[in-house]
């Protein structure tokens, strides 16, 4: 059973989402931060730079690199040398890091990076969707998505703990919706230093670049060896499923706050219709659900916190009694006319005894607002599907016909 979330109102302060992340990073005691500015991630790195300028992050070096490619590359070296490492980026910056993303996960370096999710170019757009991170889903990074600024703050500390676990050693992307969360001011409880020290021990790597005990990192592997490296990476991903749950609970024990483990459920107990989504849209969906429940529409929400690893079992469990599943995606896999969450959910239910219709909607691309009436309309569609079956499996919605 999910523990009850105890937010201490006395301790609440109103801060910007980016500040919450920067503050959380600071109290996690990073040793090396390396980042390159890009909207809407900029406030995070500016806040961290100010902390550095004020001497508030001890034993830390901040590298002002010349590109995102070097930002992450510097962390390859720093993490291998034993440092706790942090970066933040989004969109074009994340795509520029692509090659290094594989490199970091392949070398099992537990770097943590905030992604202030943003659409990718062309056309250029600085506003939010999830295409940037989703495009990197196979790079071997954990991907956690936050609903609000309290969660993104707390997820940051959780990510270090998960990534640095000796059984895991996989890097994490902690995803927050650009602008919607990065630039919003909300009342939250900032992570306290003493509690964080209790929750998150110092990073103690087993393998480091050390002249007293020379080791080679990143050797080349011929076909006799390469497969096993990939297998072990996948094993670590599978182990992280439990670790993410455990760390969410450990976090609760120390701070009294909980947002779900791999997933979270809202009013799903007797739901005929279950809506699935990730990120800040969750708040809007919850409101719509409350409204529809008042009208006796049996609708619930499945929030996906962890997209990588993909929580197949948890999702199967949560969906088992639904009559129809609706998946909302802020991304598209071009050529399949589907969003990634939709594809993954469908494939998770195949080969099981579960057999309910699943319909997908691609929403909110390039920052288009996802409004309450849109979600209500989608729920109406879902009701139709229960009655008459699927006519369209996956679709764009809210298109402006006059532009097409």
């Amino acid at each position, binding site marked *: 059973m999910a523990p009850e979330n105890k937010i201490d109102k006395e301790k609440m302060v109103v801060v910007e989402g980016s500040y919450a992340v920067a503050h959380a990073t600071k109290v996690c005691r990073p040793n090396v931060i390396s980042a390159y500015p890009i909207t809407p991630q900029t406030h995070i790195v500016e806040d961290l730079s100010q902390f550095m300028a004020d001497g508030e992050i001890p*034993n830390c070096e901040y590298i002002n*690199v010349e590109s995102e490619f070097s930002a992450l590359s510097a962390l390859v070296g720093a993490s291998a*040398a034993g440092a706790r490492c942090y970066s933040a980026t989004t969109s074009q910056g994340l795509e520029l890091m692509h090659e290094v993303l594989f*490199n970091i996960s392949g070398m099992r370096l537990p770097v943590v990076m905030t992604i202030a999710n943003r659409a990718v170019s062309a056309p250029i757009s600085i506003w939010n969707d999830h295409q940037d991170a989703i495009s990197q889903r196979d790079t071997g990074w954990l991907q956690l998505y936050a609903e609000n600024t309290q969660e993104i703050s707390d997820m940051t500390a959780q990510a270090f703990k998960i990534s640095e676990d000796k059984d895991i050693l996989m890097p994490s992307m902690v995803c927050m919706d650009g602008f919607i969360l990065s630039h919003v001011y909300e009342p939250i409880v900032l992570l306290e230093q003493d509690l964080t020290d209790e929750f998150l021990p110092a990073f103690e790597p087993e393998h480091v670049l050390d002249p007293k005990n020379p080791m080679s990192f990143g*050797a080349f592997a011929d076909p006799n060896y390469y497969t096993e490296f990939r297998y072990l990476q996948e094993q670590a991903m599978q182990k992280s499923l439990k670790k993410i749950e455990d760390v969410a609970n450990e976090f609760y024990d120390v701070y009294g706050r909980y947002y779900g483990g791999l997933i979270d459920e809202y009013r799903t107990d007797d739901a005929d219709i279950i809506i699935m989504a990730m990120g800040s849209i969750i708040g809007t969906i919850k409101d719509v659900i409350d409204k529809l429940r008042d009208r006796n529409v049996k609708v619930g929400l499945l929030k996906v916190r962890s997209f990588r690893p993909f929580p197949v079992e948890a999702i199967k469990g949560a969906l088992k009694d639904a009559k129809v599943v609706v998946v909302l995606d802020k991304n598209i896999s071009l050529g399949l006319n589907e969003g990634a969450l939709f594809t993954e959910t469908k494939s998770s239910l195949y080969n099981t005894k579960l057999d309910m219709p699943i319909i997908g909607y691609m929403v909110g691309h390039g920052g288009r607002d996802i409004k309450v009436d849109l979600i209500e309309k989608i729920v109406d569609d879902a009701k139709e599907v229960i009655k008459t079956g699927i006519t369209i499996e996956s679709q764009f919605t809210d298109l402006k016909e006059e532009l097409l």
Partner: protein
Amino acid sequence: MKSLLAPGHRGCAGCCDAMAAKFTLMGAGEDCIVINPTGCLEVMTTPFPETAWDVPWIHSLFENAAAVGSGIEAALKALGKKGNTKVVVMGGDGATLDIGMRSISGAFERGHDLTYVCIDNEAYMNTGVQRSGATPFSASTTTSPAGKVSFGNDRPKKNMPAIMVAHGAPYVATTSIGYPKDMINKVKKAVDIEGPTYIHAHAPCTTGWGFDTSKTVEVAKMAVQTGLWPLYEVEEGEVTKVRKIGKNVKPVEDYLKMQRRFSHLFKMEGGLEEIAKIQALADKNIEVYGL
């Protein structure tokens, strides 16, 4: 002196990169961390689960060794482990002059305390002798082949040491594996200087250039003796030392004749004019550096 690069690696017989790595380590000493981008040296020294390196070594990607080095240096500082440990990058000419340029420029501009050694075998050897920004004028490579209407690579070498001087590096030097003592001493000097230092080592590749495996050092010396590869040091922007050739200066023809990559120049119509252009490049070096 103990070699920190173990024998038994998989370099070609007479491999220049192996010599360059060995000399670099002799100069840098045991207390160093090596960063090595993709290229012959990386591939031939670390076939998992073996490694030829007796110092901590990391390979990341083709284009980011200097950035990885920046991170290592920053981490050592943050963790209070910097001590006397030297951070040394060894990159090929492709990794250095071409694809890694941005990350090198960034690392030098930021002033990290590291030494970057470019091992310049004048082409992408690891992928099969394709041209790079360091391939000399009129050399035939697999992507700049000599042909009916081509004398091979139609551009002169990019002047990387000058670019590094322009970055304000406190120490920039050229060297050659044909002069081991010169190379070892320059590396020793570079690693002891605080800040980003750069060494450009000329390294003839038996396989890519086409000469007998016993002739690597001889060919290397010849590049210096013709004036095509001047050896000099630049400290705080000023040329402080030059290795003189004096009366022993050799015609470039003698150097070109030793190598298959220039053999077309001796057969094709107009080849002699091309050789004259190469001679002019050497003459210019002799004049500029007072060789």
